[in-house]
């Protein structure tokens, strides 16, 4: 039987079982090799000791605990034990009476190959070759952050330099292979790998656990349905607005409460930025280039938030859109910046719905129907009004549909002295403000304030952009 024991002197359990290793080395039917991590002279009295000073063996055999005892056949591991437990070691090795006088059981210690102070360096050393992106050297006299600006990789704010170590750490956030193609990114229609998304996620300031959300956002954005190319190229002030649903929100610490659309939460702030940087850097979509926005909006830096499902009077957005409640999803909407909706007096749902409708009618222009979708983000104090009255989301949507029907005579060109409007032919009909399913309702925000928010859309529909939901995979 061939055995390999991985140990380090610094581990009290490893020192404790030094006599056991001698016993195994002397046993008739056992060939023992000891791999020692921190001291080539440890353990004493064993014939074959390999000093794993660069931790190559330990890293490549996924050693997490020392001592670890491996049973090996023709170089291939068959099974392993960790820590010291006499009866297990005896049955595992077939050698009786191991370590007389020793305690029956002692837990092991952490392997040096998973030491938090070493693991990034080891991953870079042993896995750096897996990264295919071009290496760019920075000069000694260059400031790292300025170098990112100089090379055109920033959206105007500082970015985190994407070193091999940081990118490999980012890739720990997904089970997907670095060379897997995620999407073909407009406007240059470039095949984009998981690795390239990870690099841009590093630039954006993401943590590894955000990466699956970013990958899904890139996938969703680069579909014919969502039409990132058109959204980028348009002169309108719109960009991808991202709504996250499901358990991933809590898992990565997103903020659905106070200041939900504002600054201060790392996940909210960086996930949207990672998508935008991917479009900029991989797709080549830059302001003044293919991005022709007349004025743009600050949300084009990053615009991502989670729904407050737990406090909502309604079913969450992803369930409404056909996903299981325990699925994690991201919904992309082509949207402008958020605008406030104040109603501090309505305490019954009909009154509040009328306020919502009055504000929703003005999305992009009060005389333009059917073109622009909208998101209505209901704040908790407004949500409570519907909850207490027992209204469902479907009920609210139906009422808002009725309340946002526009009389043709009011919105034809020239009506109210405004040239903008619909053609004269619509004078005698009513037109809905929004397409069927063109109004997305979500719930988010802090507990105080009788406010909600509207996010107006872009050219919505098959010829423009459809709100697009995708499930987030690990």
């Amino acid at each position, binding site marked *: 039987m061939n055995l390999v024991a991985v140990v380090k002197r610094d581990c009290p359990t490893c020192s404790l079982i030094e006599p056991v290793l001698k016993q195994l080395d002397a046993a008739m039917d056992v060939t023992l090799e000891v791999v020692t991590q921190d001291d080539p002279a440890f353990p004493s009295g064993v014939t074959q000791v390999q000093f794993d000073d660069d931790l190559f063996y330990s890293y490549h055999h996924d050693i997490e605990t020392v001592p670890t005892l491996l049973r090996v056949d023709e170089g291939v591991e068959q099974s392993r034990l960790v820590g010291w437990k006499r009866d297990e070691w005896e049955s595992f090795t077939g050698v009786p009476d191991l370590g007389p006088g020793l305690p029956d059981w002692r837990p092991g210690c952490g392997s040096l190959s998973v030491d938090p102070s070493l693991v990034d360096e080891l991953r870079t050393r042993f896995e750096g070759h897996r*990264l295919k*992106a*071009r*290496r*760019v*050297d*920075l*000069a*000694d*006299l*260059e400031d*790292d952050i300025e*170098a990112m600006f*100089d*090379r055109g*990789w920033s959206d105007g704010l500082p970015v985190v*330099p*994407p*070193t*091999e170590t940081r*990118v490999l750490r980012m890739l720990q956030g997904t089970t997907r292979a670095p060379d897997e193609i995620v999407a073909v990114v407009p406007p*240059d229609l*470039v095949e984009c790998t998981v*690795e*390239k998304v990870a*690099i*841009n996620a590093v*630039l954006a300031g993401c943590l590894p656990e955000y990466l699956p959300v970013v990958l899904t956002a890139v996938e969703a954005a680069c579909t014919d349905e969502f039409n990132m190319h058109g959204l980028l190229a348009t002169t309108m002030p719109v960009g991808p607005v991202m709504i996250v649903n499901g358990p991933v929100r809590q898992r990565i610490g997103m903020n659905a409460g106070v200041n939900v659309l504002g600054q201060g939460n790392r996940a909210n702030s960086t996930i949207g930025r990672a998508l935008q*940087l991917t479009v900029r*850097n*991989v*797709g*080549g979509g830059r302001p003044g280039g293919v991005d022709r926005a007349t004025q743009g909006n600050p949300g084009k830096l990053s615009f991502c938030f989670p729904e407050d499902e737990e406090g909502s009077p309604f079913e969450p957005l992803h369930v409404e859109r056909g996903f299981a409640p325990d699925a994690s999803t991201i919904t992309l909407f082509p949207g402008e910046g958020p605008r406030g909706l104040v109603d501090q007096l309505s305490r019954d749902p009909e009154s509040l719905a009328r306020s919502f409708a009055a504000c929703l009618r003005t999305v992009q222009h009060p005389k333009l129907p059917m073109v622009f979708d909208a998101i209505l983000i209901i704040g908790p104090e407004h949500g409570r009004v519907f909850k207490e009255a027992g209204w469902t989301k479907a009920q609210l949507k139906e009422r808002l549909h009725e309340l946002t029907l526009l009389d043709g005579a009011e919105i034809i060109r020239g009506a109210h002295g405004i040239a903008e409007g619909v053609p004269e032919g619509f004078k005698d009909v009513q037109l809905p403000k929004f397409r069927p399913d063109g109004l997305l309702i979500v719930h988010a925000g802090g507990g105080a304030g009788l406010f909600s928010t509207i996010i107006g859309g872009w050219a919505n529909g098959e010829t423009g952009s459809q709100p697009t939901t995708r499930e987030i995979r690990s």
Partner: protein
Amino acid sequence: MTRTVLDPTSERSPAHRERVARPSSLTGLKVGLLDISKARGNVFLDRLEELLTARDVTVSRFAKPTFTKPAPIDLRHEIATQCDVVIEALAD
């Protein structure tokens, strides 16, 4: 110490930045003379320095450690930050 980062772009453009446009005159410009360390390149550059200095052009001298390899990133950065123009003595 040289730091290395991974290119976040599609890599369709060269990693190094574009050269600036050739100036119509050297008057008032800072000119770097880069010796690539091939034999007698220095002789050629010494003469150029004489001629340029006589025309009131500011000249700085640089040298690659070896002609067999590209200029180190630090040397390129030094030239780029100190000079408007560089003249490289390519061959022996």
